[in-house]
């Protein structure tokens, strides 16, 4: 909605034309629309043979649980996965986009993707949107150069770490990691530690909950453990079995349509 007399070529990306008007409305007391945030616990750690990623499965809209079992560990490449916290649409879109870009890149180069490539593509995209794309990611994978684990912040900064946590439950999870992490963990020790860290987020952070998802990445092999732990079953199912529908049929009317319409048998098939 540009007000200039001559319209230039349409630029892609965000339009900030309504920002001043929105600010004025908020000052007058209007509540802005809310986004589906994943109020999350996501973690990653490096163990002796590779990388393990973990995530909870609750998606919230304010105080309400929108999805009790969503997937927060996203596929980037056969050897690279990424956990996402922040706005669900943003994490989904940005990981899908980079995944496509890497597939094309693999066709072009004929080589396995590297984690630093995904890292650079993600960070430059997020930086160019100056933090408006609200995606906080834990990127992990194993390539020819070895195992890698990175965190990526919404404004585009990155860290390279042996263990990392993000999301509203990051403090609860980091407390577990800082107490129990050491170098050279075995696969089972690593999975156990990641599950413990995510569980800590699930039970101590209200923004995280439901189940534990885990992804184990090693040289040439990946293991996606969807719902590895399900520590939150429904606690009460009514003895009644089911509740009555509480609906009343007011009127039943059957109109045979073949009396109203001309039906031609054996005509030509519809064109596409």
């Amino acid at each position: 909605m540009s007000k200039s007399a001559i319209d230039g070529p349409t630029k892609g990306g965000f339009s900030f034309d309504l920002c001043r008007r929105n600010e004025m409305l908020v000052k007058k007391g209007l509540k802005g629309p809310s986004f589906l945030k994943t109020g999350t616990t996501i973690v990653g750690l490096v163990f002796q043979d590779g990388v393990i990623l973990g995530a909870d499965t609750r998606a919230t809209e304010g105080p309400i649980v929108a999805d009790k079992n969503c997937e927060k560990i996203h596929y980037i490449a056969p050897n690279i996965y990424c956990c996402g916290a922040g706005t669900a649409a943003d994490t989904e879109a940005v990981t899908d986009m980079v995944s496509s870009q890497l597939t094309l890149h693999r066709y072009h180069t004929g080589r396995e993707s590297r984690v630093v490539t995904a890292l650079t593509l993600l960070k430059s995209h997020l930086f160019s949107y100056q933090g408006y794309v609200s995606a906080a990611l834990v990127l992990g994978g194993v390539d020819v150069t070895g195992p890698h684990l990175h965190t990526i912040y919404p404004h585009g900064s990155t860290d390279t770490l042996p263990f990392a946590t993000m999301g509203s439950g990051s403090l609860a999870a980091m407390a577990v990691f800082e107490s129990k992490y050491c170098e050279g963990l075995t696969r089972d020790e690593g999975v156990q530690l990641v599950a413990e860290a995510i569980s800590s987020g699930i039970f101590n952070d209200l923004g995280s909950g439901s189940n534990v998802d885990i992804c184990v990445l090693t040289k040439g092999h990946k293991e996606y453990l969807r719902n590895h732990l399900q520590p939150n079953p429904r606690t009460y199912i009514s003895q009644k079995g089911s509740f009555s529908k509480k609906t009343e049929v007011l009127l039943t009317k059957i109109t045979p349509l073949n009396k109203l319409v001309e039906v031609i048998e054996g005509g030509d098939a519809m064109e596409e």
Partner: protein
Amino acid sequence: MPIQQANWSPYDNNGGTCVAIAGADYCVVAADTRMSTGYNILTRDYSKIIQLAEKSVMASSGFQADVRALQKVLEARHLAYQHQHNKQMSCPAMAQLLSNTLYYKRFFPYYSFNVLGGLDSEGKGCVFTYDAVGSYERVGYSSQGSGSTLIMPFLDNQLKSPSPLLLPAKDAVTPLSESEAVDLVKTCFASATERDIYTGDKLEILVLNAKGVLREYMELRKD
């Protein structure tokens, strides 16, 4: 320098949900036991229910510091009543007292969302539901708190409250047996816990009838 606004609030919301259902000769009052602030849990084992008189039980969600202060005021007033009248307050009398106490602080309210349950002078179940400043109504069932928006429509569907506009005024009580009402309450909380992050941990249920008060607990999801 841009104009600075005051950003300290005397209130906080500790979350939680309360429900009460009245029957022909009983009343069920229930609340979860989770106390939280922001995204953190303060404790998993905090009772939001208090027995104010022999036949009056109040459950309150909201800001627990204000809730506790309100409970203490009502307890003290009830003790004074007992000294003056040599008897316990009836539930409708307690209901009026609660309303007046809340309105007394109309211009710095108790951040407390209450349901009062009990038996009236005829021994029938009664439930009174309040807003933060004392507006109240006798009803057959009610819920307050963070999960009330999830529970109320379900109770409306199951208990089909007679319209208050119909005259003559129908009886406010619901045609359920005591065990059916308890089963309904448990279902309400198990469901609200699934979708409301502030509700969970444990459910405390109080059943008032002619025999006295029975307390029951049920585990809820802790995530």
